[in-house]
């Protein structure tokens, strides 16, 4: 049995999951805002 590597792996994956969730939390509203602005900007080229 090798508990140490498994535990380290688990910490690593939970850390990566946390990072992904944190980026989603800020990324989704940011992308929504950018897309709304981009749609508005298209009016200049019509």
């Amino acid at each position: 049995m090798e508990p140490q590597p498994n535990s380290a792996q688990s910490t690593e994956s939970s850390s990566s999951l946390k990072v992904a969730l944190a980026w989603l939390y800020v990324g989704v509203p940011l992308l929504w805002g950018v897309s709304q602005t981009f749609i508005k900007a298209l009016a200049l080229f019509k």
Partner: protein
Amino acid sequence: MAEASLLDRSRIVAGPGFNRWLIPPAALAIHLAIGQAYAFSVFKNPLMSLLSHDVDHPAPDDWTAGQVGWIFSIAIVLLGLSAAVFGTWLERVGPRKAMLASALCFAGGFFIGSYGVHIHSLPLLYFGYGVVGGIGLGIGYISPVSTLIKWFPDRPGVATGMAIMGFGGGAMIASPLSLTLMNQFKNASDNGVAATFIALGVIYLLFMQLGVWTIRVPAEGWRPAGYVPAANHNEMITTGNVLASQAIKTPQFWLLWVVLCMNVTAGIGILETASPMIQEIFSDKVLGAGRGITAAAAGGFVGLLSLFNLLGRFFWSSASDKIGRKRIYLIYFGLGIVLYALLPTLGRNASLALFVVACCLILSMYGGGFSTMPAFLSDLFGKKEVGAIHGRVLTAWSTAGVLGPLLVNYLHENAKAKQLEGAAAFQNVFYTMAGLLVVGFIADLLIRAVNDKYFVHETVTRAQAEAAPAH
């Protein structure tokens, strides 16, 4: 001995294995929220017609455009002042407590402002959104900066660019969000503004909690894996530290203050007048009947400028890690001078596409000027109190935020009084902005490494350093 609270700096020191890529989203959670300030104009018409509900036919007691305009101006002035005043406190207590204070003030500003709208009290709105909210803006703006620089010593420009990009992005979220909320509450007697303020206060208070509870500071002596500070010594990048109280005694600090002030004022030259400017310069008279820029297209132009402002914050700041801070500001100013000087000609020749490209480039460098500043300060003064020093430099933004629009409006109105039209009505605005950029260029050119006498030596205590006379 009392146990340290969850908010104290000592409780947020990251343990081994902490992933530093959690810090940029924590910073973004704050900056995306407080960036709302730049979308405040969506409330202008609703606030000017609280009693009449018709902005074209206001009631005698309805607030005027000038009165409503002061709400944003007060908030920006308080942003700079509070960043300057609370910077040293932030360095002492750490980013978590500062972020929580920012969230409470920013949301509190909305709540107080909402009551001000409800009872139709302009002073209460000034105090709420302007003063209390403005303090939240200032503390929030600087709260993640020094932490980011300490976590990313290998690419400070990228790190601060990401966070400060959020401030630009915040307006893009807040504008459609506020319009949606006001539409939802439109049956209320106050055009839905009070309820929208409450909703925004709650949303932002909750949203900012990610930053508050995720932020960590690196342990003393921590370095990213594999990072070795550059061996070839660059005199413009210090390894020492200058305290904020000493930094303001250096010529470098005031040169950077001028650099920021000129860059912001020049950007405001475009931002402040973007919509009427493009409609006036490229009217039906210039482009031909039915081919002039409409109000909707002008709105698109403003949107495009916002996008370039956002992208510039990340792009230029990241590029400064490679090119160097002083050189990148020389590019902002040098290129800016050329572009501003070209705008009247492009307008006269009806070169719409080139005019738009030039304005977008100018706005990208306006954004870049904001986001590159913390890394420039860190290079010159060290990382120890860079947040506090940055806070003091931000008073340049407050100054530019008030003086810029005054200058632009004065020059434009003066031209109109002389019966000038189209591009000619904006010629003096553009040339004046180019002149301001010349001042910024010279100030940047004069920046040299900070004199050794200002640096903290480990054997000197803070009290001794602060008591040292100015030279």
